[in-house]
């Protein structure tokens, strides 16, 4: 058994070197396909960042009557935090709201003067609520609209921004679903390209397979070296794909950052490079060896 395995490996390595041009052509095609696969992973990162950045812009604010005490507001904040749909609730007191307002309008002397002339703080305290998922703002709004809270609350921004929030929620959902569909489709295309390339490579070896069969080689001894070759093709293509994508990511990263603030693609790539390389290696090696395994199958009859 050990002899057979070592011979399979030995034949595979020898074929790999002696079929130099065939190996080169196959590795080039596999590298391109693996670049697509790596590109898809990065595309996933970008769409997720884009969706997060949109999601981050959505929230609802609930404004309390000036008569509502801070304790009552903090109680409501606590009850909101207990809701499963809620991700975070920020309390903005009346004083904080005024300070922010003054800060925002510090360069506008008219507004500053008006504010200073007022005896009392006209701004209301508020709670800023972010949901875990944009589609859940409706449920949070329903909770806040319940009759037992009506006496404390002056207004809820959801009612005013409902259309915008729903539209943004749809965009987030569409970006995520679309990203998945594109990923699945292109991954299938990449897989098929690799499979067909390897099929052609094996097809050009069909006479040799016939000779091996006539000499009495068992199916595993005929097939094994091609599977080993497939492993090599996949492994080498994985290395090349990461080498090529690294500088591409480096140059593209600043441009993407302009569109999606907070996204640093190259940093993501750099910190996850080992994980990404392992994905590539797994994809390359699995598809390379499986394609060889299947492609040889049809020549193993008679």
């Amino acid at each position, binding site marked *: 058994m050990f002899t057979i395995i070592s011979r399979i490996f030995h034949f595979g390595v020898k074929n790999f070197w*002696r079929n130099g041009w065939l190996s080169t052509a196959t590795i080039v095609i596999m590298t391109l396909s693996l670049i697509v696969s790596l590109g898809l992973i990065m595309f996933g990162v970008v769409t997720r960042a884009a969706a997060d950045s949109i999601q981050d812009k959505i929230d609802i604010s609930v404004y309390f009557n000036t008569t509502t005490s801070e304790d009552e507001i903090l109680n409501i904040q606590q009850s909101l935090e207990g809701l499963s749909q809620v991700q975070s609730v920020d309390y903005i007191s009346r004083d904080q709201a005024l300070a922010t307002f003054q800060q925002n309008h510090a360069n506008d002397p008219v507004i500053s003067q008006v504010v200073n002339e007022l005896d009392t703080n006209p701004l209301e305290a508020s709670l800023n609520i972010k949901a875990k998922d944009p589609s859940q703002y409706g449920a949070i709004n329903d909770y806040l609209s319940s009759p037992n809270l009506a006496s404390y609350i002056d207004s809820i921004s959801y009612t005013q921004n409902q259309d915008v929030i729903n539209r943004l929620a749809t965009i987030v959902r569409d970006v995520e679903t679309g990203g998945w569909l594109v990923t699945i489709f292109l991954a299938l295309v990449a897989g098929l390209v690799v499979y067909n390339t390897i099929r052609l490579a094996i097809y050009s070896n069909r006479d040799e397979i016939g*000779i091996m069969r*006539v*000499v*009495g*080689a*068992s199916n595993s*001894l005929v097939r094994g070296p091609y599977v080993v070759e497939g492993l090599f093709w996949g492994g080498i293509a994985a290395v090349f794909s990461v080498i090529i994508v690294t500088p591409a990511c480096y140059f593209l990263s600043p441009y993407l950052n302009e569109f999606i603030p907070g996204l640093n693609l190259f940093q993501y790539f750099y910190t996850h490079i080992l994980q990404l390389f392992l994905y590539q290696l797994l994809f390359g090696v699995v598809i390379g060896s499986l394609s060889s395994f299947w492609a040889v199958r049809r020549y*193993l009859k008679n």
Partner: protein
Amino acid sequence: MIVFQGVSKHYSGHGVALEDTSFQIDPGEFVSLAGRSGAGKSTVIKLLIGEERPSKGRVFFGQYEVNKLRDNELPAFRRHIGVVFQDFRLLPNKNSYENVAFALEVAGRPQREIDELVPQVLDMVGLGDKMKNFPNELSGGERQRVAIARAMIHRPEVIIADEPTGNLDPFHTFEIVKLLEKINQLGTTVVLATHDKEVINSLERRVITLDKGRVIRDEKKGKYILV
């Protein structure tokens, strides 16, 4: 040892390749299958090594009933036979040494035995100095000698040669025939399919003559006669 019992082979759309053919070959014999192109010689060989299955009849090789062997049983069966083809069928990516060694490697023989046997057999066929040459660096006669070395190295019970001299000049033809005779003298059964009159007449051995898929003559010391 080899028995054909009422064997027919029909190809759909291409007529009859073999019709109700019966004969027996005993161990140690040197048998020539004679006949024009298309007489059925190659079909007999394909049926014998399990490359094709008969439409009717049975083919026996030792304890094997070849027509009943499953695909996964064929490799082990073929290790009892050495086959030599007109087009040599050498592996282009392996040198002479590796091509010959391959027949032992597929049989799972240990490396030490391979290292010892391959140079001996290549020496025997006169290619001791061309062990590292690839098929495309050898002449037709040399390639056929590598093929014969590969066919005989695992000491098969039978060597089957399908038009082994078809692509060779008279000088190399004579060389190959001598080599086959030598192998036969060492005790291996040889089945030689050929349409070369000179070869058959020089051998003075058993000749089975085929015509239009039927055995028309079977003589102990035969000559090349088609009518």
